[in-house]
């Protein structure tokens, strides 16, 4: 009965996008709607002495101008969704994050006032006339500098700019002892630089208050409408949840940045009632650079010890993580439970300690960005491994093969318990690396590399073998780790009387192709045609509940919830079928859309059963009419995809210009529903990971000024920056969810970054430049400088 699962079914959602009929937030128009523009601070840290709006209010077409002082004190500000406490048990510092600043701006882009006018152009014109009197103060942008004595303070009640400190793993003394007695220790200081997510659709909000129903509707470019509703209603505005409808319409990419509840959402909802008109706000790109939660920004020291055979004996990782000026929704989880917990990687490392200081700085918030903590962990581990191989004159692939955890399927063999809290579900690590080596033609490459040494274009190869924790996540586990929400997912399978099926999922697609993949599952499991299934998502008034899409969780958690509901539908359907066939439920088989009495040709179709359920004239006694079931699926564990990535680069010795010649990725994401879509997810992740290695990086200067906040200044990866990717996969099913799937959204971005940097270091090292690190992004200037000693 597998007609769709495992097939590259073309996406059903494509038609509206390729014909220009997508419906993104900025495409929405409501009669009488005004346009909002937000006046933002040009300074990183300043007291706001006065805001003079008199001239701006005179501009024809201006409807209202509001500042922080106009917002009632009772409206608290944007909450954080995850609490990570200090090592000593003290509560995490959680400074207020008002919708518009009250007295002090704390990063470039902090919202100072909102202008609402008949057109966006008028709102912008008026905003130019608002005179904000700032008293500029010293600022700090770097997380390590923020920890220094005497550093400018971001919040008065957060001494030393410390949000919390945190530690995980074996005791530090044990790790230190193991490192002290190691045959070789590789040590590296490095920065995992801040990057800007850059979804191609900027954030936007349309908010409307309906006096007739006393109800708000908000369309927002979000990855999780229900969570936005919960946070906004319960923690910000104090509006009853059933009086707010949140819609995430077509959303033009997220990559994490649209998970979070942003100030603009609550601001517009509140203001729409306050001014009595619907309001639209669409973020400009330069505004997005300043305000979309950024990613990464770790400053780390790491030490990895090896015995004389190359077995890893210990790892110590110490990180200053930049959280920015305010705590974004998931920010505390990213450098801790999504980072420290991955520090064992694919290896049998017996002693691991991770120490993290989470710092406030006068910069935009940092939160989950594709991979969220796991790319940073992978970067740390995989940079150390390739560097150790160079230092010990060992082969980097051999070094990994020596240290891999032996295969385990999570069924016959138990899951693998790490030193850093997680229990991996299933894994088989050698085959991904061996397949990648085969694809790259490793032996031949090393010959080419040696031959190239006599030319001006040197070659390098870099490895990265990664694991990630996704399918986020068991509610009780994350609750114990500080999450203020459960991370289950809901699904409703509503069979219509004619046998057509509407599925309501709490997952949200913003490019991942849920409308196809989820329909494939439903069609297969129910034995009906794909065209008879519709997937509905993104509307809190139609979908019962949802925790949204991030952490590669849609299929593993959301898909599993759908399977649970399908099982309920088929169970009830069997009772109706048994009645119609005058047989016992136990005597029925279900296949290809019909129930058949075993060993006979007597059958009844799914359509006949569904019609009977809604026209229950001849019907089992005591059975409710209808065929419509909901499920809430809470996963038993995270899922643990893994893979091996290899980069090959060519460096021009004269200029330092680095070209990515090949990129090979072999990933294991468990069972695959739609190979075409999974491949697409891998491609996109690779481009973002490679982009961080070679092109991207948000730059704040010492005054906290964002100095590359536009596409003229921030290097977005382009088509001609990449070769065609060479990808393959192995399949190690997840043992604990009904689909055996693990998740593919983040894999490419997690594995790729260190492979590219390792390739550049390998090229330089083999050419005689014993360089341990090239700071990312590896611009020609940085690579050239490295070669000058």
């Amino acid at each position: 009965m597998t007609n769709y699962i495992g097939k590259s079914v073309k996406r059903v959602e494509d038609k509206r996008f390729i014909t220009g009929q997508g419906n993104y937030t900025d495409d929405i128009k409501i009669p009488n709607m005004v346009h909002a523009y937000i006046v933002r601070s040009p300074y990183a840290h300043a007291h706001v002495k006065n805001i003079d709006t008199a001239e701006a209010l005179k501009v024809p077409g201006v409807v209202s101008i509001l500042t922080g002082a106009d917002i009632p004190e009772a409206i608290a500000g944007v909450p954080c969704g995850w609490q990570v406490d200090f090592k000593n048990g003290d509560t995490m510092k959680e400074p207020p994050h008002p919708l518009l600043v009250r007295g002090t701006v704390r990063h470039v882009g902090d919202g100072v006032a909102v202008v609402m006018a008949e057109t966006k152009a008028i709102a912008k014109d008026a905003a130019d006339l608002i005179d904000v009197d700032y008293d500029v103060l010293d600022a700090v942008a770097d997380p390590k500098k923020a920890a220094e004595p005497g550093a400018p303070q971001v919040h008065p009640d957060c001494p030393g700019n410390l949000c919390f400190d945190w530690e995980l793993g074996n005791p530090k003394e044990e790790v230190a002892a193991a490192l002290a007695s190691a045959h070789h220790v590789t040590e590296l200081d490095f920065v995992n630089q801040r990057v800007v997510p850059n979804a191609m659709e900027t954030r936007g909000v349309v908010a409307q208050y309906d006096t007739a129903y006393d109800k708000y509707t908000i369309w927002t470019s979000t990855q999780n409408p229900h969570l936005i509703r919960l946070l906004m209603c319960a923690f910000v505005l104090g509006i009853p949840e059933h009086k707010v409808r949140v819609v995430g319409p077509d959303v033009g990419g997220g990559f994490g940045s649209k998970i979070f509840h942003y100030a603009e959402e609550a601001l517009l909802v509140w203001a729409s009632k306050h001014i009595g008109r619907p309001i639209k706000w669409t973020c400009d790109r330069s505004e997005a650079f300043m305000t979309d939660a950024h990613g990464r920004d770790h400053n780390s020291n790491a030490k990895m010890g090896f015995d004389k055979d190359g077995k890893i004996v210990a790892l110590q990782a110490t990180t200053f993580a930049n959280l920015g000026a305010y705590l974004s929704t998931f920010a505390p989880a990213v450098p801790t439970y999504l980072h420290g917990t991955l520090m064992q990687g694919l290896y049998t490392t017996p002693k691991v300690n991770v120490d993290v200081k989470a710092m406030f700085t006068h910069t935009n918030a940092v939160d989950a960005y594709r991979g969220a903590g796991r790319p940073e962990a992978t970067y740390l581990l995989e940079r150390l491994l390739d560097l150790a191989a160079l230092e010990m004159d060992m082969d980097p692939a051999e070094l990994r093969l020596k240290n891999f955890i032996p295969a385990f399927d999570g069924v016959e063999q138990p899951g693998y318990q790490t030193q850093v809290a997680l229990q991996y579900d299933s894994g088989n690590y050698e085959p991904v690396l061996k397949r990648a080596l085969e694809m790259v033609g490793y032996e031949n490459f090393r010959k080419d590399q040696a031959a190239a040494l006599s030319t001006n274009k040197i070659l390098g190869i870099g490895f990265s073998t990664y694991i990630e924790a996704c399918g986020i996540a068991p509610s009780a586990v994350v609750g114990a780790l500080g999450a203020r929400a459960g991370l289950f997912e809901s699904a409703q399978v509503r069979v219509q009387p004619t046998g057509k099926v509407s599925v309501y999922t709490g997952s949200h697609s913003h490019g991942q192709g849920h409308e196809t993949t989820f329909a494939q599952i439903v069609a297969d499991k129910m034995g009906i045609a794909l065209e008879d299934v519709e997937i509905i998502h993104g509307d809190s008034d139609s979908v019962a509940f949802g925790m949204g899409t991030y952490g590669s969780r849609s299929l593993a958690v959301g898909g599993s919830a759908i399977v649970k509901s399908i099982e309920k539908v088929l169970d009830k359907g069997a009772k109706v079928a048994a009645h119609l066939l005058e047989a016992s439920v136990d005597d029925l088989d279900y296949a290809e859309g019909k129930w058949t009495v075993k060993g006979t040709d007597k059958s009844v179709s799914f359509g006949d059963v569904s019609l009977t359920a809604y026209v229950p004239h001849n019907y089992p006694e005591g059975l409710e009419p209808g065929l419509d079931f909901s499920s809430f699926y809470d996963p038993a564990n995270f899922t643990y995809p893994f893979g091996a990535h290899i980069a090959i680069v060519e460096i021009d010795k004269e200029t330092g210009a680095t070209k990515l010649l090949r990129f090979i990725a072999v990933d294991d994401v468990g069972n695959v529903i739609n190979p075409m879509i999974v491949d697409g997810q891998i491609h996109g992740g690779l481009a973002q990971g490679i982009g961080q290695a070679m092109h991207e990086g948000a730059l704040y200067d010492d005054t906290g000024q964002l100095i590359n906040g536009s596409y003229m200044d921030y290097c977005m990866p382009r088509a001609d920056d990449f070769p065609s990717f060479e990808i393959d996969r192995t399949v190690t099913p997840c043992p604990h969810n009904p689909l055996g799937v693990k998740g593919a959204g983040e894999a490419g971005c997690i594995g790729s970054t260190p492979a590219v940097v390792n390739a550049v270091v390998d090229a330089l090292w083999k050419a005689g430049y014993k360089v341990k690190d090239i700071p990312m992004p590896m611009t020609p200037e940085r690579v050239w400088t490295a070669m000058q000693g």
Partner: protein
Amino acid sequence: MKNKISVNVNGKQYEGEVEGRELLVNFLREHLSLTGTHIGCDTSSCGACTIHLNGHAVKSCTVLAVQADGAEVTTVEGLATNGELHPIQEGFKEEHGLQCGFCTPGMMMTAVDLLKSNANPTEHEIRDALEGNFCRCTGYHNIVKSIQYAAKKMNGATA
């Protein structure tokens, strides 16, 4: 001051009154409700707003609406004819050339222009031509394949 303009968009003549500073993309989206053309940046870098002006791909955020007076404009809404997808649209669907769909209209308009001047581009030429169009979802891999699909189909059709 408002300026009267008359623009042929996707074969239909439209009259409008626009401010001198108004961008063509704004005219298309706000006056004509042709929201298939997207705005992805404010520096004329990303290409999401790419349309055809008198048969050539331009970024409609870099053209004033008044400059389009008397011109012929094609947007993504005008690519299909009588409900039949243009080969480039078909290519993007067949080769999974889109994920979130936001950059897609601009990508397709750029690609159609490329294929007009180079019916059989190499991978390198395709990547080079896409230099002014950003995509954050696909890593460009399948966009290249989508354009190759369209080239093949269009060449086959004219052969």
